[in-house]
């Protein structure tokens, strides 16, 4: 299988190189009108397209060969020895594919080939633009295939040629259900941004007229964004459940690396609407998508290049130089293309008012980019400080909680304000009408927090939490009022009830109302984040029969147990949970600590009792070496569930926005409708919405 896999990767590289060159030559010939050459450019482009499709088959064969080798415990391969063992459960054998450098690069190649395969099969809409995008994808694919063929080879044989009887096993931190889906989701996001990037660069290279390339890539971008969002949150959930420190986001460089392209991608999804609707921000959008792709590559460099240290960097090596060179080449190509073609990106309109939907998009972009810059700055600051004064400084959550929380709160504010502003300009009258209820909701929520005993002025975290909750109330009111206002119009038009009208309203503009649902999801996520300010914890050495109290809960240790299986040894405590003196769980909570036999590495398995109000999160920290008694740490983390609920709502909203809009039935209007003449003046008459 090793030979088969290696051969498949080599074939894939040859096909990708052919795709790149044949595509490049074909497009060049087309551009200069090379119809008189021996090979017609169209035929050359078709062979390039087919090479791309065949390349997908070759990379799939290689990925299959690696998975097959893992499942058959082929310890003649260095990669299998390093990342698997015989006792490893089957689901985690899949995870071995992305747990190491070589395997995860192969996964990247395979996902890129898959995206390319779909792109090349769906080129009917615009063959030439797809040919450009396909050729650019092939260029990216060549880079990654060079890596897996010559630099980080997944099919390398063990040194000495003698296969060991068993492997070293998978990193215990990765032996958790989410690890089977978190990395592929994240990679689907990272790799997926290559597609809109390729379309944007291709459209710029060919001076593609109009905004059609945005329509073509909208679904790609939204799918990609959704996968990246899911990937990031699955990572958060994994960190919460496995690392056992009571939190879900540690501002680790690897976490930051995933957030940066998400932020620029989110900015792109918003600002692209200005280009579609008003022909504005063309250069800005092109650079946003370029930056998103570049940040995806930078994220990979940070994760694997060893540039910054991270608790998540499972696959570091000296491969960073390759990524730096690739980043440089991509940046140079983007900059050159932009400089040569920038006259094609002239804006058709300018922003007319500071208080308008366009401005709110611009400020939203600004805040998202400020957040991205702050994260990049914080992530690279240790490198910078080491370069300047020789001391590598630490930049952890303590730094980010000071600089990122105000930015996040401002972003939440804009989430509510933006949709309430009109395109072009908002009058004070309409603002007063649209903002009155959200402002009332804000103050009611803030006063409600104070009445409920939240000491808003006591602590920075509590202050921001109260402001966040109040803004959440305001934004929710704004979103609901948008739905109600629209549904009322349809209710008057059609006579349907309000709920049915709201559904019809959403179906008539899935993108807009799906977007509002996404905003609602974001509000719920922020609601959960704000709960962090009220986290409580207690740590105690707990002999059997002893108890610890946190908030309303009292945990009583029933006893400690040790067990073993083929994969690991485990020790755990069993704790009955009482709330106000009443036992609330039928089964005791059982936090455990595992030690994996194959490599002696420990892993925390947290016991978590989650409610909508808070999580009772219990960690078995190990035994006190002096007394032999277990140490239990209990956290009471408010509102964490809302983060996961918010994610579900966000994903639902994204899917909703992807559903094609219901086309209205056009009938003659009962009242005249104003049309604009060619000279821009209004006249009456024509068709309207059904009444």
């Amino acid at each position, binding site marked *: 299988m090793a030979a088969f896999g290696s051969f498949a990767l080599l074939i894939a590289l040859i096909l990708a190189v052919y795709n790149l060159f044949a595509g490049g030559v074909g497009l060049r010939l087309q551009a200069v009108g090379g119809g008189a050459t021996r090979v017609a450019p169209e035929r050359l482009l078709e062979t390039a397209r087919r090479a791309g499709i065949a390349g997908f088959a070759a990379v799939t064969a290689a990925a299959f060969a690696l998975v097959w080798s893992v499942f058959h415990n082929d310890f003649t391969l260095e990669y299998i020895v390093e990342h698997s063992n015989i006792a490893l459960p089957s689901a985690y054998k899949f995870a071995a594919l992305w747990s190491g450098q070589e395997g995860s690069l192969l996964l990247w190649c395979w996902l890129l080939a898959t995206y390319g395969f779909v792109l090349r099969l769906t080129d009917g809409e615009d063959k030439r633009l797809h040919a450009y995008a396909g050729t650019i994808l092939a260029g990216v694919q060549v880079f990654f295939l060079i890596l897996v063929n010559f630099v980080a080879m997944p099919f390398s044989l063990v040194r000495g040629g003698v296969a060991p009887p068993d492997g070293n096993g998978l990193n215990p931190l990765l032996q958790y259900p989410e690890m089977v889906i978190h990395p592929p989701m994240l990679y689907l996001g990272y790799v997926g941004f290559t597609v809109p990037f390729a379309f944007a660069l291709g459209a710029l290279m060919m001076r593609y007229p109009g905004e059609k390339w945005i329509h073509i890539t909208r679904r790609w971008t939204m799918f990609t964004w959704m996968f990246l969002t899911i990937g990031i949150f699955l990572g958060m959930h994994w960190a919460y459940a496995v690392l056992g420190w009571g939190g879900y986001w540690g501002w680790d460089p690897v976490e930051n690396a995933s957030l940066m392209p998400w932020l620029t991608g989110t900015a792109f999804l918003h600002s692209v609407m200005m280009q579609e609707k008003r022909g504005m921000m063309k250069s800005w959008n092109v650079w946003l998508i370029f930056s998103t792709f570049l940040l995806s590559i930078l994220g990979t460099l940070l994760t694997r290049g060893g540039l910054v240290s991270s608790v998540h960097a499972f696959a570091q090596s000296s491969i960073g130089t390759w990524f730096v060179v690739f980043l440089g080449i991509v940046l140079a190509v983007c900059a050159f293309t932009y400089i040569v073609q920038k006259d094609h990106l002239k804006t058709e309109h300018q922003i007319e*008012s500071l208080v308008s939907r366009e401005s709110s998009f611009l400020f939203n972009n600004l805040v998202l980019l*400020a957040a991205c*810059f702050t994260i990049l700055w914080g992530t690279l600051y240790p490198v910078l400080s080491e370069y*300047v004064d020789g001391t590598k400084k*630490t930049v*952890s959550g303590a730094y980010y909680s000071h600089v990122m929380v105000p930015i996040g709160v401002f972003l939440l504010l804009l989430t509510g304000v933006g949709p309430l502003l009109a395109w072009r300009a908002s009058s004070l009258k309409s603002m007063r009408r649209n903002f009155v209820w959200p402002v009332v909701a804000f103050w009611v929520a803030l006063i409600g927090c104070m009445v409920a005993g939240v000491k808003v002025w006591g602590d920075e975290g509590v*202050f921001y939490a109260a402001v966040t909750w109040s803004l959440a109330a305001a934004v929710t009111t704004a979103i609901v009022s948008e739905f109600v*206002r629209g549904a009322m119009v349809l209710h008057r038009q059609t006579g349907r009830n309000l709920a049915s009208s709201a559904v019809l309203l959403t179906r008539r503009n899935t993108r807009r109302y799906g977007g509002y649902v996404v905003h609602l999801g974001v509000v719920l996520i922020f609601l959960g984040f704000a709960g962090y300010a009220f986290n409580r914890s207690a740590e105690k050495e707990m002999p059997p029969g002893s108890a610890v109290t946190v908030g309303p809960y009292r945990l009583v240790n029933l006893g400690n147990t040790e067990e073993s299986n083929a994969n690991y040894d485990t020790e755990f405590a069993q704790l009955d949970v009482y709330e106000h003196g009443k036992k609330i769980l039928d089964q005791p909570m059982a936090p455990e600590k595992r030690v994996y036999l194959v490599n002696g590495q420990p892993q925390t398995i947290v016991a978590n009792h989650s409610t909508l109000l808070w999580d009772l999160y219990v960690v078995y920290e190990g035994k006190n070496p002096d007394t032999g008694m277990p140490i239990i740490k209990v956290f009471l983390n408010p509102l964490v569930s809302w983060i996961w609920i918010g994610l579900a709502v966000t994903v639902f909203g994204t899917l909703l926005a992807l559903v094609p809009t219901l086309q209205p039935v056009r009938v003659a209007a009962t009242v005249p409708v104003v049309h604009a003449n060619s000279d821009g003046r209004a*006249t009456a008459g024509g068709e309207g919405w059904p009444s």
Partner: protein
Amino acid sequence: MKRGIKLWGRTLLATVVVAVCLCATGATDPGARFDDLGHKMMCTCGCNQVLLECNHVGCTVSGGMRDELTRAIAGGQNDSLILQSFVQEYGATVLAAPTTHGLDLLAWIMPFAVSLLALGGTIYLVRHWARQQPAPTQARTPEEAQALETMRARIRRETGTREDGQG
């Protein structure tokens, strides 16, 4: 319109000033100081975790560091001195965040400076663009005005909006 925007601006500014003043307060009781300082330092065992959040089995470093911190607080040292003594013992990497002097100040200032510059630049640009807009054409024929008024009336009827703009 302008007066309304100014009022919003002033309210926002006042909120920011109050928030900044409130954020400047610090912890005083030993438990809160231990928690506060423990979250300002990293465990130096190589786990890359904040001192009070290092929880891996058999960490030989974090326990000693915590004891040291408890002793320092009980000894009556102020926060700054305690942090300084840890830096001398474990190096600058022990601090969970950059300090607020020298080059480190740049780490704190840069995000806000860049954000403010971008914000200011954007406001300037948008106002510049808005000023460049041609004035809307007022002249309409009576038929056009009538058609527009009919359309407005229909919009008001369907959106349930009164003539004065109130819902």
